[in-house]
């Protein structure tokens, strides 16, 4: 088995692991981590597509590589937004949970009541 | 020679993995931060060895980037408020 196929298999496993984390973990921060695992798993599968497209003296197809680079940056921006939302939720309610009926604490230093 | 370099890269990754098993589990968050530090150094070492063995181009820059960012996780750790350290179950004077 080539190293590319191996990395592709790892990518497939990462997507499965991350999907499980997104579904089964109740905490938002861990959902963000799991979501990033899915993303990097997809990137790895993309990586094997790039590697199998080796031609013209290049050891990997540059087009999927460029898309993965773009993807990593966009994934970071999405994570930063998600983290900011989670922290804001924590500031407002004193808890970080996605349950809609979770109890809210009276607004302290947050700014809802202004 | 390149097989030797690859084997040493594997050996370092293996020892790092064993170390990770120990310190990712804690007991405190400080131990966990050491895991990030350990994989940084071990990762750079195996990166350099793999690069020397396979002759891949531009890997030096990757190692340089990792080296520059090696302490960032620890910096974020101390920077984000007071780190709550669980008391170590085995204090030093138990020895």
């Amino acid at each position, binding site marked *: 088995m080539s*190293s590319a196929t*191996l990395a*592709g*298999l790892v990518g*497939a*496993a*990462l997507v*499965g*692991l*991350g*999907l499980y984390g997104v*579904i089964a973990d109740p*905490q938002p*921060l*861990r959902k963000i*981590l799991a979501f*990033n*695992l899915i993303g*990097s798993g997809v990137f790895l599968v993309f990586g094997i597509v790039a*590697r*199998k*497209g080796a*031609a013209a*003296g*290049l050891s*990997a*197809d*540059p*087009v999927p*590589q460029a*898309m*993965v*680079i*773009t993807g*990593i*940056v966009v994934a970071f921006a999405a994570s930063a937004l998600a983290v900011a939302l989670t922290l804001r939720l*924590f500031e407002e309610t004193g808890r*970080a949970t996605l*349950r809609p009926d979770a109890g809210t604490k009276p607004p302290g230093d947050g*700014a809802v009541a*202004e | 020679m390149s097989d030797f370099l*690859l084997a040493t890269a594997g050996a370092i*990754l293996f020892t790092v993995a064993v170390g990770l098993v120990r310190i*990712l589990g804690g007991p405190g968050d400080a131990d966990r931060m050491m*895991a*990030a530090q350990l*994989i940084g150094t071990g990762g750079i070492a195996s*990166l350099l060895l793999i690069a020397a063995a396979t002759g*891949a181009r*531009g890997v030096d*820059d*990757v190692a340089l*980037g*990792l080296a*520059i*960012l090696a302490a*960032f996780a620890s910096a*974020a750790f101390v920077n*984000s*408020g007071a780190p709550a350290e669980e008391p170590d179950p085995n204090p030093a004077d138990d020895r």
Partner: protein
Amino acid sequence: MSVLQALDVGLALLVFAVAAWTVFAPGPFAATVGYVVYGLLLSLVWIRLFAVDVALTEAAIGSGVTGVLLIGAAARLRGAETTPAEEALTGLTRLFAAGLCLLVAAALAAVVLLLPDQGPTLAPQSMERLPETGLGNPVTAVLIAFRSFDTMLEKVVLVLGVVGVWSLAADRYWGGAPGEARAERPEPTLAFFAQMLAPIGILVGVHVFWVGADEPGGAFQGGAILAAMWMIVMMARLTEAPQASAFWLRLALIAGPAVFLAAGVAGAVVAGGFFAYPPGLAKPLILFIETFMTFTIAVTLPMLVAGPPRREPRR
């Protein structure tokens, strides 16, 4: 099995194990550190896939900058993470979810195994047209020339990300600076480290950007290293984060996509196509655009990590 194959298998197992730790770790902080370790290991995997540009991006953004973001968030959320038991899924639902995920992973694995040995590729076309751009690194050529519209829009996504993060600020902090004003003195070790590292890091960041034309590297990677230098200087409290309302900051945030878009529109007038570069001028133009993009990335990433404004604006 050769030594290299054995190494690949070991690396794959390690990546999988650390990823599993990230999902199943006992606490959120442990999971977050696991994710930082995982990001670092991924850049080793990308080296083995001969994608050095991606490895560099993963090392700088996937591991370094994301690590600061997530560890900071995990430390701040420490009080919040005792999740009530009723939020956890029941055993049966968990089993069902696990089965579903296993199915997805198995399907993807099957696709990976069924891929033909020589897949469709755009590598020959890229190499054929590479001389017209004057660049030596085909990945940079794809990013800035062949698929430049993608890259420009991706910069817009970054700006939108900052807008999104800023709009989470409380009303009275609107337009203020991110990060709490703290009375405590800065950690002296960290200040020393930042003073030592920042000049070297800035040099390396510019180097990575500059060699990106011909060798692995480029605007993203160089910009991310420069961004990290600004972050470490702010973490060491050697400088304060700028106010969100600062005019220069807003200009810096849009400089990259604005210059890129202007060059694209100019291409439609001068070179006969949206985002076409006039022959002969391609390389200087690409470097010009990339300089602004590097700058914008170096300003955007720290603002995304710093979060929404948390201080009342000064007038």
